[in-house]
């Protein structure tokens, strides 16, 4: 291994080669091999820091392998594989290249041993992911891309300023645990928060993910936010503030998700809610909680990709993801339905599915650290997860109101990769110790106690009973086309309107003022010009004259200073 090697280079190299492979099948096959090669390159390495790069006075640690980065590297490799496989039918080279660069940048960021390397890849994910949304190429999607990109760049900018200040304070750019005790670390924290979709910074997520191509959304769902989770876990584990942010994050999206009509946006809210659980785990910061966060991130990437894939397959066949247009597809897409339900059961944390074994780590850590209110918020949020991701998603697509769709089952490559993800969900749920063995801290935890299984089932089934009754009595929110305002209204509607009003009045005032002032300034300038300019000047030589005037003024001021 040379000193410059890092796993992300495999992705970048592949991204450079892919556009030149003309045969579509060959191209897709080649791409499928990339995540395997990427994972193989670090799978057997011992923990340590490998690649260094001199940069200014720093020696950048561009490839650091330890427990935390290893498992995130593994998650991202799996996610890359799933999203590339799901995009098997895609021929758009822009989308293919950007998904490779995106995955590579995310993996590069995870292995970054210092903040500068992190920053470079941080921006890399921003640019590559924006292209995945742009790839839809409709006016709405392009406008959305711009909003998304603004948020991502804002995050990068905050990170950059934060790093500069942090370096000035500490003289180090190592990416280690940080305390929120200076402006620099606060800015870094905020930058992570933007990417992690903290409350009020979250709208880029719900805005952008439904706007990407169906395959692009699967890719998007895996990397950006989990990278932020990784960064927070690395830099700010045990920051108490995060516990409350996480609790708020897990709670508020469930209300929005319950009434959202666009299923991909429902999943985006759901993603936000899941991140809340992870953020709580980071905030608690005990080994058990951090393991819970990592485990949750691991299983989450898989089942969230599975859910996005099932919605993607439905879009592929029907051309819509709206609750108000869908229903009754189970007859035609039974396999897709089965896989979707596996994803739903996993995210709702049914015993024997992957969500159960991961989420319980975080809940136990919260309870054992005595945060009773946070714990209760997470329990309420869990019921919310069951509502929107566990029930609403499969129910509204495959059951609900039969709208007379007659479609074919999703194509075989899609079914295969959905089946792969579903299998992983079940395997992890049945053999949790395999996952636990990969976690960064040694963990002694047994999710399958009688108590735990019974209470979980009680909660889930009684909630399901409530759902059935609400449907039966027609209280469940009706399905029709609409959107819901969220905080993004502030910058998409309110501020532009304020700006328009202000501009209007400023213009009016300026015009009135200019009518008087303009002439006066002009006259004054003409006087000076006549005094100093060449005789009989034409309009054409005016620029030269004005330049000379400037020189005179400047020299005058400079000389004036000499007399002060």
């Amino acid at each position, binding site marked *: 291994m040379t000193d410059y090697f890092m796993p992300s280079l495999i992705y970048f190299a592949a991204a450079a080669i892919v556009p030149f492979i003309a045969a579509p099948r060959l191209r897709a096959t080649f791409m499928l091999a990339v995540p395997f090669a990427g994972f193989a390159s670090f799978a057997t390495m011992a923990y340590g820091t490998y690649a260094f*790069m*001199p*940069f*200014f006075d720093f020696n950048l640690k561009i490839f650091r392998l330890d427990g935390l980065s290893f498992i995130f590297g593994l998650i991202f490799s799996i996610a890359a594989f799933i999203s590339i496989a799901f995009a098997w039918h895609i021929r758009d080279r822009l989308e293919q290249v950007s998904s490779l660069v995106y995955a590579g940048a995310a993996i590069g960021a995870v292995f970054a041993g210092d903040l*500068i390397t992190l*920053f*470079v890849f941080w*921006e890399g994910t921003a640019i590559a992911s924006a292209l995945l949304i742009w790839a839809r190429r409709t006016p709405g999607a392009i406008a959305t891309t711009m909003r998304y990109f603004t948020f991502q760049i804002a995050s990068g*900018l905050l990170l*950059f*300023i934060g790093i*500069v*200040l942090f370096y*000035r304070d500490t003289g180090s750019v190592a990416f280690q645990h940080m305390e929120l005790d200076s402006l620099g670390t606060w800015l870094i924290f905020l930058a992570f928060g933007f990417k992690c979709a903290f409350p009020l910074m979250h709208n880029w997520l719900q805005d952008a993910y439904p706007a990407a191509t169906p395959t692009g959304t699967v890719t998007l769902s895996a990397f950006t936010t989990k990278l932020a989770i990784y960064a927070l876990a690395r830099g700010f584990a045990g920051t108490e503030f995060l516990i409350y942010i996480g609790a708020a994050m897990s709670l508020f999206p469930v209300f929005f998700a319950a009434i959202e009509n666009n299923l991909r946006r429902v999943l985006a809210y759901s993603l936000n809610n899941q991140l809340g659980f992870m953020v709580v785990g980071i905030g608690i910061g005990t080994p058990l909680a951090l393991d819970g966060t990592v485990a949750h991130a691991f299983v989450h990437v898989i089942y969230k990709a599975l859910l996005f894939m099932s919605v993607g397959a439905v879009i592929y066949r029907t051309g819509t993801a709206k609750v108000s247009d869908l229903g009754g597809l189970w007859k035609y897409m039974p396999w897709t339905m089965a896989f979707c339900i596996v994803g739903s059961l996993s995210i709702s944390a049914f015993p024997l599915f992957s969500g159960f074994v991961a989420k319980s780590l975080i809940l136990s850590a919260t309870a054992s650290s005595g945060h009773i209110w946070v714990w209760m918020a997470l329990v309420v949020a869990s019921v919310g997860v069951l509502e929107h991701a566990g029930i609403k998603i499969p129910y509204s697509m495959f059951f609900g109101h039969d709208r007379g769709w007659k479609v074919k089952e999703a194509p075989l490559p899609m079914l295969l990769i959905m089946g792969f993800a579903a299998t992983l969900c079940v395997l992890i749920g049945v053999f949790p110790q395999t996952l636990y063995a990969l976690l960064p801290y040694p963990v002694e935890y047994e999710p399958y106690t009688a108590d735990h299984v019974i209470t979980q089932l009680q909660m889930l089934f009684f909630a399901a009973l409530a759902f059935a009754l609400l449907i039966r009595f027609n209280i469940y929110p009706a399905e029709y086309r609409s959107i819901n305002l969220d905080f993004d209204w502030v910058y998409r509607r309110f501020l532009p309107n304020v700006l328009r009003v202000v501009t209007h009045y400023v213009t009016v005032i300026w015009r009135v003022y200019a009518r008087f002032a303009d002439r006066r300034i002009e006259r004054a300038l003409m006087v000076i010009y006549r005094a100093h300019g060449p005789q009989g000047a034409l309009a*054409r030589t005016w*620029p*030269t004259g*004005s*330049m*000379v005037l*400037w*020189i005179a003024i*400047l*020299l005058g*001021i*400079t*000389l004036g*200073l*000499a007399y002060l």
Partner: protein
Amino acid sequence: MIPQAIISQLPILQVIVPLIAAPFCALLGGRNRAWALAFAVSLVTFAISAMLFASTLDGTVLSYQLGGWAPPIGIEYRVDALNAFVLLIVSGVGALTMLYARESVAYEIDERHHGLFYSAFVFCMTGLLGVTITGDAFNVFVFLEISSLSTYALVASGAKRDRRALTAAYNYLIMGTIGATFFVIGLGLLYMITGTLNMADLAHKLVEHGDSRTLRMGFAFIVVGFGLKLAMFPLHLWLPNAYTHAPSAVSAFVSATSTKVAVYLMLRFLFTVFGFSIPFEVDVLRTIVLPLALIGILAGSIVAVFQEDLKRLLAYSSISQIGYMLVGITLLTPGGLMASIIHLFNHAVAKAALFMVAGAYVMQAGTSTISDLRGVGRDMPFTTAAFVVGGLSLVGVPMTVGFISKWYLVQAALEQGWWPVAGLIVLSSLVAFAYVWRFVEAAYMYPTPDGVIRREAPLTMLIPMWIFAGSSIFFGLNASLTSAAASRAASGLIAASSLIWQ
């Protein structure tokens, strides 16, 4: 390897080789002969400056006495870490632009003028090298005039494509002459006080002399004179027209070297000659140059956003980039100086690449108007990719040279506690992103207009373009060479001045 006798003659060879070759270019005239000579000469000059750079790398100062007359009576050429670095930039850019010029000039200039054109080009290079290498203040004026006069002619030779080149050249002539005159007036005042024109001697005598109104006058004239030459806001008015209407090869060469040499002169006079022996000099920098530089940074970028012409856009961006260098100087700290010097190099590399790209568009698409260049990213992928690389460097994206200089500059500003300045630099990067994006958007996100056929630029243009674009990445990743050179140059300047550092 190389005889010692030749090494000791390098400083004079640096100037004399192109100076002698220039008239021959005019005599050779015609197809490619003039170009071949000019190109060969530029390669030789580059080799010489590379040798000079290598031999001053360890901190030695080479002094060459013209005709064996010892300074302060005779003229002295003095090469230290700073001007060896600038010489390398000038001759390097010169050599690569010469390679680029062959196709571009063949397209933009009448063939019967080729001899004269290359002659002026080589003269211009001679002047810039001479200004940089000389240790004699009056000699600076002489070479400054050589380079300026030839630049006026070069700018005016763009008249075949665009008649406005003539007015641009005329304006430039007036302004340039005023700048040079101011410099001479200032120099005269200094001569009045000290009776010497050798820089080292001047510095020595000025310290002995102490403060006086004459000295202050001289200082003011020289600073304003150089301010004109380096296009300090608001003395920049000549620059946009000159760069826009000049032939593309000239734009690339002049934008990358001429203002840089002026910045070098500013540094040389401020630190080596004046040396901040009196507080007035610091006052002028802090109360006049600094605010103007800051306004220039922001105003230049903002104006660039609204330009319709790519070359004009780049010209305004130059004004803003020059602002960065001035800010670095006014910080008066080793860090700030180093940022300035390193930006000198970095901006030269990036701007040369960008103007070469613009020139390739002029040649292959017949226009440099942004709206007419829609979809050009697909027709001329390599050229446009070079623009993206250079543009990213202007923005200051990491892994490009632009990032390196901005990093040092922001660090230096923060070291002084100049928060607003650091903030402004970051803000202007955003504005820079806006103007770069405008072109990138046009080039990549719109289809080619119907009926427009554009071919990729020829290899002799792509190679120099990509050498610059590539080095703006290479030195962005591996900044140790440039930063070492810049920091040695900065410490040399500091040692020469009477500023006291903590």
